[in-house]
């Protein structure tokens, strides 16, 4: 189906709820006494949006708003992940001590707006719409990253984010304009076909390649792919912790969704039997293989030397972007399924790790260095330490945790295509990764607390969040069929 603007509205409930909610929260802050409860309101709105996503899941697939965005299984999958990421971030925000006394109305309003932008990123199928959604998410993220105005690091983060973001979206829009100039269309699938035809004329390869690489800058920046990753450690460190978690999980997932949709139904076509054939002439898969290897290696090696746990998790999330790209370059349904699966797993373990970090920061006057974890298990923090242990080993890819299963699917995808080099680089990276995750574990369990280290206790609300993440990490590490079949069902791109 291909619906007009008005007809589209009834398939547009999630976005409408988020948009209306975002404005409503601003109003509520001024007009009511709900100021202290706005977090809960935002939580409710996001949950409502998620229900709405579930409601649209029953609907037909098709284009909305004259082919600007699309309603299909793939978009639904990412909307669910993004909605959950927003819920996680809001949940954390309600218990965050750094955010106390800041303007909750603006904060939650912008957070919801950012989620709205991410929903559009997951579902846009038009270059212009994709660019607008990406910029919308970027702009809201700049504000959120610098929300702690008292903190010099926060302003630095925001400014760096803005400058990097501005440059990369500039490059991207230039790339997209070249694509438009060459093809005369903005629709992903149509541009793909047109570029494929153009490639048959000799001499077009170079310009198309430049256009694609420039577009890639924007996507790469969103998922923190090397060399477009430099913003992320500083922004992760300077932003309020719930926002760091939101960027690490949500922003990355949204970027990934856009990347997949641009390159898969756009610049390649399904070749039957589960494989994808890229348009001839432009060798983007090889380019991405190199990017994947470099991204995971740079992320891991730099993470080794970090003493600030927030920065460490930032570099680790760069490394995980590299792992995720393993599924991207396999050019198979299995590869895509592995990426979707890993996105879910990554959400669980990374958000969980950030939630534990918040418990530690709350309990130790905002300290976020490795020493703040020293002997955590032996000074009241047995539960957060045990949870962190599970998240760390899951991030390192050890069974019986979900991180291992996710990684196994990614490895399987590249090994199926016999990409041995990439598999070996990723294998070596897994070992490096273990070293720095084990450093956190070592600090928590093998080191003894020093006099004066505060007693850390997890508050109930955070404990519930962490508990759910732990549960997911363990259960999906032992029995993951539901997630895989959900990912499988979601591999539906309308219009390709």
């Amino acid at each position: 189906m291909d619906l007009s603007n008005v007809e589209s509205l009834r398939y547009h409930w999630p976005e409408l709820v988020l948009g209306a909610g975002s404005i409503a929260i601003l109003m509520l802050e001024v007009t009511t006494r709900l100021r202290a409860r706005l977090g809960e309101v935002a939580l409710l709105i996001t949950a409502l949006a998620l229900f709405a996503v579930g409601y649209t899941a029953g609907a037909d697939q098709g284009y909305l708003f004259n082919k600007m965005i699309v309603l299909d299984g793939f978009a639904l999958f990412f909307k669910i992940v993004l909605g959950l990421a927003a819920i996680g971030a809001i949940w954390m925000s309600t218990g965050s001590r750094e955010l106390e006394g800041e303007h909750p109305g603006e904060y939650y309003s912008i957070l919801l707006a950012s989620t709205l932008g991410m929903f559009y990123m997951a579902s846009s199928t038009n270059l212009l719409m994709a660019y607008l959604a990406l910029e919308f998410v970027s702009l809201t993220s700049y504000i959120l990253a610098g929300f702690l105005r008292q903190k010099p690091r926060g302003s630095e983060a925001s400014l760096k984010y803005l400058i990097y973001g501005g440059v990369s979206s500039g490059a991207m829009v230039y790339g997209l304009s070249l694509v438009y100039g060459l093809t005369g269309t903005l629709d992903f699938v149509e541009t793909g076909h047109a570029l494929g035809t153009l490639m048959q004329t000799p001499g077009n390869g170079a310009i198309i390649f430049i256009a694609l690489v420039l577009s890639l800058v924007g996507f790469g920046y969103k998922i923190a792919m090397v060399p477009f990753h430099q913003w992320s450690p500083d922004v992760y460190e300077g932003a309020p912790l719930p926002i760091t978690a939101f960027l690490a999980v949500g922003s990355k997932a949204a970027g990934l969704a856009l990347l997949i949709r641009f390159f898969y139904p756009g610049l390649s076509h399904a070749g039957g039997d589960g494989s994808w054939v890229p348009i001839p002439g432009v060798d983007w898969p090889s380019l991405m293989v190199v990017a994947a290897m470099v991204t995971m290696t740079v992320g891991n090696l730099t993470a080794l030397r970090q003493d600030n746990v927030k920065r460490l998790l930032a570099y680790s999330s760069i490394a995980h972007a590299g792992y995720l790209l393993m599924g991207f370059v396999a050019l198979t349904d299995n590869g895509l399924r592995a990426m979707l699966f890993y996105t879910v797993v990554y959400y669980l373990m990374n958000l969980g790790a950030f939630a534990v970090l918040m418990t530690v920061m709350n309990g130790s006057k905002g300290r976020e260095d490795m020493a703040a974890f020293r002997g955590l298990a032996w000074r009241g923090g047995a539960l957060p330490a045990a949870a962190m242990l599970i998240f760390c080993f899951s991030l390192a890819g050890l069974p019986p945790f979900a991180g291992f299963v996710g990684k196994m699917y990614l490895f399987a995808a590249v090994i199926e295509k016999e990409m041995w080099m990439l598999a070996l680089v990723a294998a070596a990276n897994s070992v490096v990764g273990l070293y720095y995750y084990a450093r956190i574990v070592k600090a928590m369990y093998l080191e003894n607390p020093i006099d004066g280290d505060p007693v850390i206790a997890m508050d109930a609300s955070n404990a519930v969040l962490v508990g759910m993440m732990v549960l997911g990490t363990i259960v999906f590490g032992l029995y993951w069929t539901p997630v895989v079949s959900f990912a499988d069902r979601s591999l539906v791109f309308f219009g390709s």
Partner: protein
Amino acid sequence: MDHLLSLMTFIPLLGMFVVLALPRDNAKLIKITALAFTIPSFLLGVWLYQNFDRSLVTMQFVERFQWIPSFNIQYIMGVDGLSVTMLLLTALLCPICVLAAWEIDKGVKGFFALFLLLETGMMGVFAALDFFLFFIFWEVMLLPMYFLIGVWGGPRREYAAIKFFLYTLVGSVLMLVAMLALYFTNDPHTFDLMVLMDKAPTYTRAFQSWAWIALFIGFAIKIPAFPFHTWLPDAHVEAPTAISVILAGVLLKMGTYGILRICFPIFPLATQDYAFWALAALGTWNIVYGALCAMAQEDMKKLVAYSSISHMGYVMLGMATLTPQGINGAVLQMFNHGTVTAMLFLIVGVIYDRAHHRRIDGFGGLASVMPVYTGIMTIAFFAALGLPGLSAFISEVLVLLGAWQYNQAITVIAASAVVLTAAYMLWMLQRVWLGPVNEKYADLPDVDMREKIMLVPLAIIVMILGVYPHAVLDLMNPTLVALNGIVRDATPAVAALQ
């Protein structure tokens, strides 16, 4: 007994949850509970020993159900003559180790919970017949081991723990890659080891070669074979006694077990190609190198650790020969080394508990101070140096018999190393137990009841197997002869047709 193997594997895991639920300060209760949850596996092991059909070469007590159908991952447990031997060794050593850890007073609950988890991992590795399941159990052992060394170990425990962890993980990721490659090579894709074995003739030589090497590195780290051995002395020196026993008694065997279970039957051609350099030559080098290093040690535990490296060399040599004697000798040596080295580490532990150091030159004349202890020690030491009439002699002779048919030069070198073994063992014995009594330790108490309970059964097994090796050999002989035949008779012609 439909679920015998699952019960043996998961009863300790149940024990872990029970231990975790117990109150933290009741150390005695925790210890008794931990012991109580290792005993059923041992008793089931005894039953298994009685009821194992020694005439079959196929898998017995097989359990199978679909775990993740979309990826064709199955839960398959089963034992043949090779794994039943190792399973029994594990079931035997675990209760003994709980006793050996009885004196632990720091973080008792955590220690025993992790120990029980470790037991589940070990049992699972030996019983799993699905490669994926095998891998999970293999990795599950890492985590408890890291903490058991890292939290309850000696002064350099953090270093030793992470070194152990990283070394093993290098092997694991290579194993993961090879495992997935194997999975995709077959159509339909499967992790079922029995199917993978049946399909062995269809794998090309090139694929066999590199997959063999990837798996071999993973297993060699565990054995540990030179040059991947450096984690072992560190881990042993820092680990508490009970963990050293498990490490030397069971974990090292997983390396050679993995080679026999996976590399041999699934990649027979590659095994033929690499047997000489990777197993025979490297094994002999292990024997000599380990013995020479052991000679130079001043710490008793480090000496025993290096002696393990040396003794595991016989296992590698034995299986490389591709003769029935050699391969039987190798697996018998795995069992015997498990019991003998366990005794050695327990013996060192006994003295460390009393004197709080392990320097070989720090004692003297212990024989007159602790007579019973010395008697038990003598059995272990003479078994370790290969005295006829004790268990290790039989397995080493079998290995050398096989090796003689295979390569006489190597056999001569390996056999001469027995002299080195005798030298470091007797030298340590002389310095610690003989000579004038060190006044500082003139009134050390002799072994108590608990220590007797853990040492005497092992001593009895060592003596029985010295005169009646068939008690164990009969279990494994048919399986190993068949396995040997598969590898020896594999021909490249079949693969070339594919």
